[in-house]
């Protein structure tokens, strides 16, 4: 069972819809007990880094999420702000984040591009990985973001995207995956990636064909 963290500032229903569409058993989770039961965790996100951190803290489940992901090695997928809050610090609201991934979150330069970035942009994958199974070397995904992540360790970068600057649009580190793009809103390619994540979590069953 994949647990989609349901917190005040997230877009958990969209992620759940996408998982339902591809036949992955999933549910919204918002309590320690519920989170403790799942074998894959998705942290969806929209809104601001500060709002996300505040509502995660409000929910009171950060301990159990951290334990599951960092100690038990449960597969984890962060989406959009769910990627950004994994880093040490975000410029957005000068926010201290979870610090699971060394690095920082910076704002796009408005001198270069329109901010927020809204639209379909190309992610170029840096290497092969089971989570990318069946995907091309470059794929279009839907992005909505004003900020981007800068991991300290270049080895964690799984995809790069160009928007005024070349930025890291997906990371992987052990059992942690996280994407800047909205994989739940990126059509067939996005669903494929979600399915691959479910496979890694050992949770994909009857996959529907469209």
């Amino acid at each position, binding site marked *: 069972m994949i647990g989609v963290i349901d917190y005040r500032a997230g877009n958990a229903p969209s992620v759940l819809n996408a998982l339902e569409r591809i036949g992955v058993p999933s549910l919204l989770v918002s309590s320690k007990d519920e989170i403790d039961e799942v074998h894959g965790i998705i942290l969806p996100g929209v809104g601001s880094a500060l709002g996300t951190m505040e509502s995660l803290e409000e929910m009171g489940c950060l301990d159990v999420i951290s334990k599951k992901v960092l100690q038990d090695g449960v597969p984890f997928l962060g989406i959009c*702000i769910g990627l950004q809050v994994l880093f040490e610090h975000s410029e957005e609201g000068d926010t201290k984040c979870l610090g699971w991934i060394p690095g920082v979150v910076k704002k796009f330069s408005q001198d270069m591009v329109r901010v927020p970035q809204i639209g379909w942009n190309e992610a170029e994958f840096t290497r092969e990985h089971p989570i990318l199974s069946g995907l091309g070397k470059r794929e279009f995904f839907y992005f*909505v973001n004003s900020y981007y992540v800068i991991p300290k360790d270049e080895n964690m970068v799984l995809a790069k995207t160009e928007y005024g600057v070349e930025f890291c649009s997906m990371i992987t580190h052990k059992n942690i995956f996280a994407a800047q793009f909205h994989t739940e809103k990126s*059509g067939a390619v996005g669903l494929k990636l979600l399915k691959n994540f479910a496979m890694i979590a050992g949770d994909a069953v009857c996959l529907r064909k469209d």
Partner: protein
Amino acid sequence: MLPKRIIPCLDVKDGRVVKGVNFVNFKDAGDPAQIAAEYSRAGADELVFLDITATVEVRKTMLDMVKKVAKQVTIPFAVGGGIRTADDFKEILDSGADKVSINSAAIKRPELILEAANLFGRDCVVVAIDAKKREGGDGWNVCINGGSVVTDIDVVTWAQKCEKLGAGEILLTSLDCDGTKAGYDNQLNRAVTAAVKIPVIASGGAGKKEDFYDAIVHGGVDAVLAASLFHFKEVEIMELKKYLNEKNIPVRMEIAK
């Protein structure tokens, strides 16, 4: 450059798509979820649903529609029409829409933009601006209530204020061009795109493929919206994208399905 977005707009009344969407092979030609899925397969990058009833009584019908659409499509969609409060935003977003578009309510109470941006993130706040050329032609005024009331507010000044308050995007409709099929108002588009740094969607006036190119190149917009032109298949989305691609405008050529 970020690929330019092609956005079909659907008018909805009492939870049903109206104003003639001409899709064949439909058991139910007015079913928003089915039409949305069809557009997603046809290569649309995003969708806009405009609720033209939007009275309190049918609010629930609309939310049910949003839920059904959200289950059917995996491309982003915005919902507009009759949104007045932050609670309205919450209901629509919780039902599965990705963005909410506000128009008259933002003019009447600009703080709504700020409230919504703070609560839900600026990315989901679309401010729709209906523009009408001033007599004498030296600029545009903002119209509200479906274009029936012309305010004395300047469009460019208002767009900048929206950006400052926290709008993530501007959906700019030229009421002078809307329905004429004579092309977008690219003077208007240029005036607004030059004045703000958030993305701008052009709307009103598309009649042929060249009009989309002009809005992107001469109007400087980030996305183009049209309704009947797509509904009646006068322009097919993938054909339009192919045309733009050949003219070196970046577009997403894959189909989301």
